[in-house]
């Protein structure tokens, strides 16, 4: 097993609940992402939140990104564990939005201008374009980019202005196998850029999310003593998995390992039972 140890928390969800018009969408969600360190390695972490369609994953994303305030509970981010505000967490939405009226380079410059002076912003933008293999498309408008290029651009844009934490809402949705491999590469690329970089994947693709993550939380419904479903999706104690501890994290081709596949099958059973 790869040696590792944990340092300070980088994201904390403390009893987060959300109601809309009296209807509970999310209930008492608690989870903590810790900065994981591996000796002689400079790599951040990938964690996953799995939830079936319609469970309120996008609401959870917007809460974690500081775009909406939960009805109760708090979200704290960063080493200082400050309450989340819009812009504190990079958030790549499902459709990879970019400013359609700006060229790719300008899109990144707008983001970079938040943290850097104009000269440095330009330099950082160039570096990100290079790193994400987008240099040749810098003058193109988003409508001219392919799905993969658009996704890389959206991630680069968020990385340029956020502080290490980046949230991906359904990053594998509707992608073919080659594109999924591409996204996986991008995610690993992001984590190798800085020890503190943390990618939070919120997805309904259990296989890919589990393969990439070193911590996993399953969102689902709980039942009361009489067997009735309780309102609002939550993360129960038995649905929190430390994949590093289980020896399933940071393997190059983990999806080919029987142990991994047995675990995914177990997760699927858990998901079916909570339906």
């Amino acid at each position, binding site marked *: 097993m790869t040696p590792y140890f944990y340092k300070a928390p980088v994201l904390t969800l403390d009893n987060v609940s959300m109601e809309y018009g009296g209807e509970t969408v999310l209930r008492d969600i608690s989870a903590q992402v810790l900065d994981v360190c591996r000796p002689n390695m400079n790599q951040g972490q990938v964690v996953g939140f799995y939830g079936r369609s319609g469970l309120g994953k996008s609401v959870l994303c917007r809460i974690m990104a500081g775009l909406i305030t939960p009805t109760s509970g708090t979200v704290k981010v960063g080493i200082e564990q400050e309450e989340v505000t819009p*812009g504190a967490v990079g958030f790549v939405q499902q459709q990879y*939005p970019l400013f*359609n009226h700006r060229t790719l380079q300008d899109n990144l410059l707008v983001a970079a201008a938040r943290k850097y002076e104009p000269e440095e912003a330009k330099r950082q933008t160039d570096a990100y374009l290079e790193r994400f293999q987008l240099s040749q498309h810098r003058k193109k408008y988003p409508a001219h980019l392919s799905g993969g290029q658009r996704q890389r651009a959206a991630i680069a844009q968020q990385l340029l202005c956020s502080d290490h934490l980046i949230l991906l809402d359904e990053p594998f949705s509707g992608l073919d196998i080659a594109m999924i491999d591409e996204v996986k590469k991008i995610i690993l690329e992001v984590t190798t850029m800085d020890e503190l970089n943390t990618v939070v994947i919120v997805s309904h693709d259990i296989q890919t999310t589990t393969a990439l993550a070193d911590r996993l939380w399953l969102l689902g419904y709980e039942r009361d003593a009489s067997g009735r479903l309780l309102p609002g999706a939550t993360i129960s104690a038995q649905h929190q998995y430390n994949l590093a501890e289980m020896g399933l994290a940071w393997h190059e081709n983990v999806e080919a390992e029987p142990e991994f596949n047995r675990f995914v099958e177990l997760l699927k059973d858990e998901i079916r039972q909570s339906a």
Partner: protein
Amino acid sequence: MKELFSPNAQPRRRTFALMAAGQAALLLGLWLWMPLRMFPSLSEVLRAFVDMVTTQGLIQELWASMTTALQALAVATVLALLISYLTALPFFRPLAYAASKMRYLTLTGLTFFMALMVSSGHEVKLSVLIFATTVYLVTGMTSVILTTTQQEMDHARTLGLGEWRSFWEVVVLGKLDDMLEVVRQNFAIIWTMITLVETLYQSEGGIGLLLYKQNRYLHLDGVVAIQLVILAAGAAQDYVFGLLRRVFFPYSSLTTAR
């Protein structure tokens, strides 16, 4: 040929141009050889056109009307943009709502109030046009603003842009091309109104007054000639607006279905 009648087909440029030319020729042919003589003939219209250009100053009147229309459009666009963008603040939303509803007011009643408020005939004409155009523009512009999605605003906010900067980036800059389209579409309304306003305030002349006189004396050939001149001016304006859109907002046509 078959593709000209297939839904959503994309005929070749040459085929399409030939088809459009054929349709125009057919229309012209119908006009030339139509047995029913309700409509003045092409030669009569051409004669009336030449007569109005040489003796009644059609070009000068057209220019006068056009400069008034452009003046009104410029002021109305600024006012309408201001009112529409102010809807970001809840306090101003009733103003935009009321402005939009005022498009139901009739011009005839309005000119009376405007005449009380301003001094010269030109100002009355201009203020009526500005008012009427503004209320139409506000309607179109606010509906453009309402197309802003949660995703677009969230995207700007996650980049750490404040609320005003997000509004500027997403709504103001992001929808400027759509606003130009609203202006283009509503410019046609000015032409409808200017002819009416010019007949109400005849001291300043204009193509509307010329049209009114031709109508009054049942000079159908003159009426058709003026209408065709207005049609040509409108088509030229549309072309210019399209050109401006392509030059200043090259991204705007990239996502349009063809």
